């Protein structure tokens, strides 16, 4: 970027530095290579200037004065001294003061060795204490949530944790208590700090006051080894440092990546590694014999699998074989499995989604927004799920901006979400009405009068939304984030709404949110019917891939729903489950069970046992994150690295190796001797990925990742330093956040360069809007009848009874109870009270739950939560192909 003309010049310790007006002294100094010590300052939060550690001497007409570098912006000609005598005295004084009441129990403190208080005392503090009085005492430590413990004696009252909770997460469940010297951090008695983001406070605590229960006394910082990796527990793809001790993962820390997570993580991602050592981990291949799974060698298992696949193919044709799942895979593994299915078996029956997602063409075919686009947007439309539940850190990035009024939010949701109170307009939704309501809004903006009327919603909300969104002319400052608003319904209606928005709001960008792991990578790698790797369609790229692979399926294949139906009708003979659990995750659990029961062979490739394992005939153990490597594509289409830190447990293999060996057993050579071979083939063949340097997965530097489709040849490193406490020469920082040497790298990261971009023989065009089906039937196939008059909506929670969560005792307590969200008027007409226990009856079963009155729920709907109690909400639904399900709610 050309240097802007309004730069100003300041001197830091005698050296001239150019700076932007408004930049903080602490930032300018840091850029000039001068570290100013600090405790309360955090680059991702607003400065408060409280700890006074960052005092520097600043020139002024009235002579030099001590000013907090974290709070005072630079001014032209300002002379800043960070090491004058008065600065040194102030630093020494602040540290002496902080240590007065600090217990100095470093030998038994988790933070010892990576502690900013310890390090900065060494560098700037007094050698010994002059205090003779007794220190302040508190009971220690006290749990403030399931995952976080508080030691008030160690606390230095910097307010980082309380500010994070309030300013970033928007959940002020902790606050300062008391005054002056007696100030402590406290929860409200009986209301623990059960925020999804509580773990971040442990990471940013500059002392050992907040510690993570699962990590306590697990390791010493100097024994830790770490690699940079990507969290795969949802599709946001937060960058993490995976830290291990004695070949066991003991901690995840968030790395500060400008474009993605700003160092934050959700607790599911931060503590998700706990499942690695769960008792339900599958360690050895096995075959079912006489109803029991019996451990066998890999050779036996693979040969058996190959034999059954070959036989089915021979007898029933490739259409009789199907592959469901794949979101858990790395891009390379997904590519390998796609090649097994589509080139070796020659079936297009692959689906990484489990019937609760969105059509792949809709996901891949629209102009995609990045997280930065969304954060810089002036206007934001969010349709569907509560982002906090499905893409937590995306929510965390957006929430403060919406609260500050930098982004105007219009949401369409089935219930009150974590953003509803901040929204300019919140339009209630029932499935089936998305298209109508979106069109009503567009009509109103266009000036078609009373367009908002007669559709059963508050016209005022439409007016508010219209005001927030302004005109339809240029909408390059508008981002639309969308997801399926009810896990048990299809998304035809959503598709209609999105297409209407795309058509009316010119230049808007879109961000589809699918929640599962590397689902975007799996779709990009072709694990979906009618897709081939690199964001191309089977019909569009058939010839191209045929030339490269030798063979591709002749016909379009089946979706997960179609495969399960075919299996239940005994038309599908072999079902390969790629890290998925249809019994728990498919919207129609009856169909899933029936299918797994009827299909001849279930090949189960996974790391942890789940409900579908009971139906498996062949079990192939796959390695988990931090035991494997590869690349990940997040919901923006940004590729980042998944790294290996520890050896795989038991005999588990990385998925790509399982695919490759299975192909081998099937008599075909995929040509993949190593992960790098796959990465190279993707970069050579897969159109959206073409030109990607094959060494991607082997890079060690921290950077922003690269956005797809690959267009630029260089990737700029815009990263801020991983931990704000970074101080050169202090070894402890190596162990906290990202390693300094990579974070501060000045060398621009280069993922791809022109020379390596291969010539492509034929032109294959990427999936675009024209591939999205527009013939949509919006009529619900069923209608309300009799007492069953409320339309059932099922939403997701971050912590549910999913495998990875249910296998961690820390998480299990965080699973909420079944809530029954209902409009107050609907409730009163049914004689139902807030907080009361009710039962909901649907097609066959009953489910019970606690009533939450929510005036953002549409009066014709009732909102339940997926997979939080033993009672299965899916059993309330009828056939999942029907687009509407109706239930009755009674006391």
């Amino acid at each position, binding site marked *: 970027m050309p240097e802007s003309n309004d730069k100003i010049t300041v001197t830091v310790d005698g050296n001239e530095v150019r700076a932007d007006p408004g930049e903080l002294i602490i930032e300018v100094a840091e850029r000039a290579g001068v570290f100013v010590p600090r405790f309360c300052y955090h680059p991702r939060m607003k400065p*408060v200037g*409280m700890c006074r550690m960052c005092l520097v001497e600043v020139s002024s007409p009235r002579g030099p004065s*001590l000013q907090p570098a974290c709070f005072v912006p630079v001014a032209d000609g300002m002379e800043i001294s960070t090491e004058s005598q008065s600065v040194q005295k102030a630093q020494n*004084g602040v540290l002496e003061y902080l240590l*007065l009441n600090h217990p100095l129990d470093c030998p038994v403190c988790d933070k010892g060795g990576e502690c900013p208080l310890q390090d900065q005392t060494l560098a700037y503090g007094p050698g010994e204490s002059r205090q*003779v009085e007794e220190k302040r005492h508190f009971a220690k430590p006290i749990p403030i949530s399931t995952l976080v413990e508080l030691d008030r004696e160690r606390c230095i009252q910097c307010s980082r944790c309380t500010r994070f909770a309030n300013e970033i997460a928007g959940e002020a469940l902790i606050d300062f208590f008391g*005054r002056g*010297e007696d100030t402590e951090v406290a929860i409200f008695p009986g209301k623990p700090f059960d925020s999804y983001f509580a773990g971040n406070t442990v990471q940013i605590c500059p002392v050992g006051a907040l510690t993570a229960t699962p990590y306590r006394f697990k390791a010493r910082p100097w024994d830790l080894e770490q690699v940079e990796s990507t969290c795969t527990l949802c599709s946001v793809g937060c960058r993490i440092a995976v830290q291990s001790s004695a070949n066991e993962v003991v901690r995840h820390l968030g790395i500060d990546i400008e474009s993605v997570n700003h160092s934050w993580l959700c607790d599911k991602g931060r503590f998700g590694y706990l499942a690695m050592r769960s008792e339900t981990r599958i360690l050895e291949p096995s075959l079912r014999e006489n109803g029991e799974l019996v451990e066998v060698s890999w050779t036996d298992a693979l040969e058996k699998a190959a034999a059954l696949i070959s036989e089915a193919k021979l007898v029933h044709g490739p259409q009789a074989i199907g592959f469901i799942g794949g979101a858990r895979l790395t891009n390379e593994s997904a590519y390998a499995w796609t090649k097994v299915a589509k080139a070796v078996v020659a079936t297009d029956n692959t689906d990484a989604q489990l019937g609760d997602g969105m059509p792949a063409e809709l996901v891949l075919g629209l102009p995609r927004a990045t997280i930065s686009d969304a954060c810089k947007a002036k206007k934001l439309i969010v349709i569907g799920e509560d982002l906090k539940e499905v893409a937590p850190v995306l929510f965390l990035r957006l929430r403060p901006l919406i609260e500050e009024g930098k982004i105007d939010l219009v949401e369409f949701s089935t219930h009150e979400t974590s953003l509803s109170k901040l929204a300019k307009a919140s339009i209630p939704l029932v499935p089936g009405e998305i298209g109508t309501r979106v069109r009503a809004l567009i009509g109103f903006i266009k000036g078609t009068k009373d367009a908002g009327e007669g559709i059963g919603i508050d016209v005022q909300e439409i007016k508010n939304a219209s005001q927030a969104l302004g005109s339809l002319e240029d909408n390059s400052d508008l981002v639309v984030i969308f997801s399926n608003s009810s896990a048990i319904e299809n998304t035809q209606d959503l598709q209609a709404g999105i297409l209407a928005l795309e058509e009316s709001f010119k230049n808007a960008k879109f961000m589809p949110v699918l929640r599962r792991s590397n689902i975007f990578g799996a779709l990009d790698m072709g694990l979906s019917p009618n897709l081939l790797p690199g964001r191309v369609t089977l019909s569009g790229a058939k010839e191209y891939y045929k030339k490269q692979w030798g063979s591709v399926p002749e016909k379009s294949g089946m979706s997960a729903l179609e495969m399960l139906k075919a299996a239940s009708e005994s038309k599908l003979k072999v079902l390969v489950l790629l890290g998925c659990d249809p019994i728990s995750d498919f919207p129609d659990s009856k169909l899933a069970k029936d299918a797994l029961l009827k299909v001849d062979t279930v090949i189960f490739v996974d790391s942890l046992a789940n409900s579908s394992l009971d139906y498996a005939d062949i079990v192939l153990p796959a390695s988990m994150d931090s035991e494997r490597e590869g690349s990940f594509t997040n919901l923006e289409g940004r590729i980042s690295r998944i790294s290996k830190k520890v050896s795989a447990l038991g005999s588990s293999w990385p998925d790509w190796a399982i695919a490759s060996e299975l192909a081998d057993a099937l008599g075909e050579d995929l040509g993949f001797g190593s992960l790098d071979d796959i990465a190279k083939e993707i970069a050579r063949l897969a159109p959206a990925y073409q030109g990607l340097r094959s060494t991607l997965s082997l890079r060690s530097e921290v950077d922003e990742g690269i956005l797809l489709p690959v267009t630029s040849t260089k990737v700029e490193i815009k990263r801020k330093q991983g931990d704000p406490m970074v101080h050169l020469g202090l070894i402890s920082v190596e162990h906290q956040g990202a390693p300094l040497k990579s974070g501060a790298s000045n060398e621009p990261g280069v993922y791809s360069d022109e020379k390596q971009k291969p010539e492509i023989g034929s032109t294959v065009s990427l999936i675009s809007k024209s591939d999205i089906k527009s013939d949509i039937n919006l009529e619900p196939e069923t209608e309300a009848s009799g007492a069953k008059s409320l339309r059932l909506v099922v939403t997701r929670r971050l912590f549910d009874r999913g495998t990875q969560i249910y296998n961690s005792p820390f998480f299990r307590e965080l699973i909420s109870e079944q809530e029954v969200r209902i409009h107050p008027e609907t409730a009163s007409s049914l004689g139902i009270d807030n907080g009361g226990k009710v039962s909901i009856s649907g097609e066959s079963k009953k489910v019970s739950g606690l009533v939450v009155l929510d005036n953002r729920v549409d009066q014709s709907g009732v909102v339940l939560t997926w997979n939080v109690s033993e009672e299965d909400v899916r059993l309330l639904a009828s056939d999942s192909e029907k687009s509407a399900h109706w239930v009755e709610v009674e006391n």
Partner: protein
Amino acid sequence: MAVTSFDPIVSKRLRIPNSHTLEVYLSNDGYVGLKKALSMNPEDVASEVMTASLLGRGGAGFPAGRKWAMLKNDLVKYLVINGDESEPATFKDHELVEKDPHQIIEGTIIAAYALGVTQAFIFCRGEFALGFERLQSALNEAYEYGALGRDIFGSGFSLDMVIHPGAGAYICGEETALLESLEGKRGYPRIKPPFFPAVIGLYGKPTVVNNMETVSNLPWIVINGGAAFAALGEGSSAGTRLFALSGHVNRPGWYEIEMAKTTFRDLIEHPDLGGGIRMGRSLKAFIPGGVSAPWFGPNEMDMPLSQDAVAQAGSMLGSGSVVVMDETTCPVRAAWRITKFFSRESCGQCTPCREGSGWIERTMRRIELGAGRMEDIDLVLDACDNISPGLSWPPKQTTICVLGPSIPSSVNSAITMFRDDFVAHIKDGKCNYA
């Protein structure tokens, strides 16, 4: 110098029975100033106040007219009256709020009119429960009387006023902490810049914060003109001021005095004022302007009660409260008690003040109780120096607000003036005054 005679300004009604009621107020020139102000242009009202050279009565002594002129123009602006009087030994607002609440309300309305404000808040110290009740009653009466609300006295000017109770925190007397408290938060002072209330104040809007006594002068200034006010006093110390006298004097109490024309000796010894030191004892030291101020000794007794003169001598008139300590006073104990006050009242934001105040207090207490070490004397001074580098006056600071740098005032004064007493405590292992 002598005690000058003049017609009292702010204290005129304080000795009249039932002066807090509207009835008594009206029969003693009540709301005359407001009616006159409403007939003037707002700018002219402001200009009278500028002419009056009325210094803020809260402690910092900044001219009210200039404070008003600094108010940034904005669609929404606020006026907040600081009645959180908590500086130890200060009790003039306490008197005003209990005895003449209408005068405060009238002054506030005049200020609001001059500033173009439509909502004003009077922040009344919570411990003044009776005063709060009287202010609330007066507010009801004022609404009823038409002095508040829509279209005041038919002038077209409308104003709403809210009486807001404090809840016991000295720091809320600091204007930005007061605004935080008024926003329903912990009373943490804001950092200036950028949080100058005139630019970013209550709810982020431009705000004028005036002391209760300051606005109590406004009705008189409007009636008699700014020049009449400025004619009293001398130089920048214009007008009269309520001084609160306490400690070892025969007649502790509040006295309205013409500024700069009267000396500390007059205030302490004049038979109509302090009436001299009790039991005929001699003076050891006095605090000229609240416990944040450095102490004076007998040599400063003839100094005039002028803001500039006191500042030049290394202290301040501050909140206008004079504490007299006679020869029997233990300076260690006095300084320790004042330090204990700051330690209890530190808000806890800044490390030096939060931690330093407690440490200094504990060390001072140790010395007072006879468990001090010789090195403790320099230790407390150095600890003070880390809060207020150089221990100079006006103080430098390593903290956000001036509470921290107020801690060294008494400690440094006591040690400098009475080091022998400290040494004696340490050597004898006890307090010789006890």
